[in-house]
């Protein structure tokens, strides 16, 4: 059987190398097949330059109708799998039609590329950036090669960042007042706060703080919402009495969070919520959910 496989082997080997590959930071990216690979990461308006080399299988020639490289920003909805929606598409022609006999290298450059959206791998949606090299051939079909990379964008520290303070309760049963120190957190931030018990008539067993991600895809009647609990952090053990105040200190760094995305290309949104959950001795849950805005703070180092 081996020779059959050999027969379908691509006629050439294509590789993409970024010019600053050594110095550029690499980040892990989870591929479709579940494997995690390290890929370079870029920010919007950076120059993406490098070299593409095409190396025919030894002793063979590659006849082609032209070689091009495309920089694609794509959104893929999972209910519509395999169908990519390109929101960014840039093309560079690398070679005019001809034949390649031996390894040939083509430099390429996309300068100050506008990449407003971040790479995202969600439950129902994926946003990716990819370099696609195409060697067009007439009858034999084109040869393509993909090179993924990740885009992340930094936000400045928000100028207004109020705390979230709220009094909630069930009449004559439970009254609490809680406070989170901010409403906007960066990905490595710490949530500080406290919960003050004004009235406790139920037997509380414990209290958790959950971080929930709400991903909504599509629009109008086709909107699909998926909520995941990314963190479940126990805040309190046991039943408090009236007047007790319980501290909150939750480090966000251990969790795989992304910034809040609002209406990305009219395709999807990702929002984050803090959900305060009180559980009583009969396992009834009392909760209050508050949206928080996540943002990516520029790395100072």
């Amino acid at each position: 059987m081996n020779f059959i496989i050999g027969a379908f082997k691509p006629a050439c080997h294509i590789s993409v190398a970024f010019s600053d590959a050594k110095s550029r930071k690499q980040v892990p990216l989870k591929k479709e097949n579940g494997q995690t690979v390290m890929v370079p990461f870029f920010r919007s308006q950076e120059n993406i330059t490098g070299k593409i080399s095409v190396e025919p299988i030894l002793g063979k020639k590659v006849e082609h109708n032209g070689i091009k490289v495309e920089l694609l920003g794509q959104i893929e909805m999972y209910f519509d799998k395999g169908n990519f929606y390109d929101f960014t598409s840039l093309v560079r022609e690398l070679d005019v039609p001809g034949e390649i006999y031996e390894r040939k290298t083509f430099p390429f450059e996309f300068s100050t590329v506008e990449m407003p959206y971040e790479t995202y791998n969600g439950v129902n949606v994926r946003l990716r950036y990819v370099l696609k090299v195409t060697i067009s051939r007439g009858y034999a079909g084109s040869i393509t090669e993909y090179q993924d990379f990740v885009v992340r964008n930094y936000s400045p520290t928000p100028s207004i960042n109020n705390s979230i303070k709220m009094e909630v309760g069930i009449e004559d049963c439970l009254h609490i007042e809680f406070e989170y120190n901010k409403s906007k957190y960066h990905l490595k931030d710490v949530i500080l706060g406290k919960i003050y018990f004004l009235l406790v008539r139920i037997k509380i067993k414990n209290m958790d703080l959950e971080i929930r991600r709400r991903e909504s895809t599509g629009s109008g009647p086709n909107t699909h919402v998926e909520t995941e609990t990314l963190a479940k952090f126990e805040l309190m053990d046991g039943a408090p009495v009236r007047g007790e105040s319980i501290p909150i200190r939750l480090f966000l760094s251990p969790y795989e969070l992304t910034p809040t995305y609002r209406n990305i290309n009219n395709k999807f949104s990702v929002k984050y919520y803090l959900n305060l959950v009180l559980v009583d001795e009969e396992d009834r849950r009392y909760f209050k959910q508050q949206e928080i805005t996540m943002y990516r703070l520029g790395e100072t180092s």
Partner: protein
Amino acid sequence: MMISNGIEDEEKWLAEGIAGIQHNAFYLHRAVDSNNLREALKYSAQLLSELRTSKLSPHKYYELYMRAFDELRRLEMFFKDEDRHGCSIVDLYELVQHAGNVLPRLYLLCTVGSVYIKSKEAPAKDVLKDLVEMCRAVQNPIRGLFLRSYLAQVSRDKLPDIGSEYEGEGDTVMDAVEFVLQNFTEMNKLWVRMQHQGPVREKEKLEKERSELRDLVGKNLHVLSQIEGVDLEIYRDAVLPRVLEQVFPDEYHLQTLETLLGACPQLQPTVDLKTVLSQLMERLSNYAASSPELLPEFLQVEAFSKLSNAIGKVIEAQVDMPIVGAITLYVSLLSFTLRVHPDRLDYVDQVLGACVKILSGKAKLEDSKATKQVVALLSAPLDKYDDIVTALTLSNYPRVMDHLDAGTNKIMAMVIIRSIMKNKTFVSTSDKVEVLFELIKGLIKDLEGISTDDLDEEDFNEEQNSVACLMHILYNDDPEEMLKIICTVWKHIMAGGPKRLPFTVPPLVFSALKLVRRLQGQDGDVAGEEVPATPRKIFQLLNQIIESLSVVPAPELALRLYLQCAEGANDCDLEPVAYDFFTQAFVLYEEEIADSKAQVTAIHLIIGTLQRMNVFGVENRDTLTHKATGYSAKLLKKPDQCRAVYACSHLFWVDDQDGIKDGERVLLCLKRSLRIANAAQQMANVTRGSSGPVTLFVEILNKYLYYFEKGNPQITASVIQGLIDLIKTEMQSDSATGGPASDAFFTSTLRYIQFQKQKGGAMGEKYEPIKL
């Protein structure tokens, strides 16, 4: 069977817990040996998760805790060695806080915290403060207590005490004290909470568990005592008050009372001694209340006198203490006394006396808080003794009240009255009444400085109504004493002024009349023997009382009361007295009652009362009825005249066995009222061009029917026939004016006659001649 199962189960759970710890400890050791921090944290968190169990009693839990404790020691050593795990202590301090479960997280945090302090990379006080704060997250009593005890344990050698290497750079011994005290306070809270949790049937078991944990809490005090930097001053100013607030076994408090109290006056004025002492007294009284067998203990240590002395000294020592503070202290002492020595009235009085002493130096109280406290002070005995009379024997009670301003005095008076009403306590001697009215004098008369004009009328009415209610509760079975009570009350309310008398006189009058009724029957004017409480005497008093209303003036009220008295006198067979009351009533009617409507009401009252009187001789009765009939005919409006006159007909026909039955004069009255009705009819014709309502005729017809049935020989079927025909023509002549009411009235009257006719028998025969 159940219990033994419970114990077996517990053993099983403990074994499971230990196995869990051992299992994780194995991996933990491996991780530590290979310097793998991440794994070490993971397994230590899992190991500590075994401590999250709720199934073990404190005793067994302790066993489990000790196992975990040993492992934590080992972990601490690993944490200390930065070279091995390659993580700075600051990062480590954050890293352990990533643990999702709170209990393992906090154990790890305390462990790292201890290393952190040792590293001196941050001030010890900051780390300690953070730890003691974060530990709040565990609110379960047992788990919380053990966690905090762990914290106390690991921090013990790292307190910024004097001479310790952690002292300095802003860390003072005060921080150490503060930390220990806070941890201690929180532990105490948790410990106390154990008492209130769980089902009642397990109370005993809980108590046992609680006492097992007591040592854990107590350890803090031990630590505290070892802090060398605590000198007397710090102890006095900071430690003692805080410690005093905490839960010590009560018997301990009781026995050391003297030492404790001795320390108090020496404390700095800034220390809130008031709270400390108040709480102490409250605790002790709760303790005393918990079991009656404890009382001898209190007596033995002379708790009251010690407390009382201490308070006196404290007040003396703290010159600047606001008066409210002093009074608050006395309130606490009083409630202590009431609970511990409810039988010792002299103690209560003593406390009140002490208050008087404080208050006497000052003018009337202006401070609203202090006033409130005084009210609390005065209310306490009332609440305790259902019997207000007890309070009345306290000689200092009114003296304290004297120091209240008029407004509060009133409020207090209301409180007293309400308490009496609530308990239905009968105040039974005139002496007590005297004291009582002295107490509530704010309600009884105008106090200087406050004019009744600016008072809210509703409030005033309510107050006076309360006083009125109160009078009904003054009672003694002995008529003589009762009369004395009435005289005392009278003496007091006389001073009340015209605004109060209308409220206070009626209840007193009725109270006196009640007494009269009690005496009636036993009284026969026993010759020679001086009986002080005779109806005659009471009536004399009543006369005076009612006369007082003339200053108000309230003639209508007075008239009613006179009539009531007349009835009373009637029942006692005292003709002259009754006559006199009637005379008074008539005089009032003539001279004071001018309003026509009031006159109508009054005359009907007079007629009604007079009708029931049977004590009068012919002559007196004639005079009075004559008078009444005369007034009736002189009313302003014709319809009123008519109605009053036909009502007078009853004065001549009393429907009992030996009542007067003067048919002729009845007929005269009725005829007279018919004439008036006629005149009214004509008058209406002239002025309004239509005849007046026939209602009057129908009413008179009904009177005719009444006397007809009662057998008045003067009222015959033909007379009635005539009247019916008259009404019929009147109604036909002008049907428009009849009005539905009088129509219906007439129709149902006729229906009644019809009914009587059909009924047959003697009555039917009587009615037979009447044609409808």
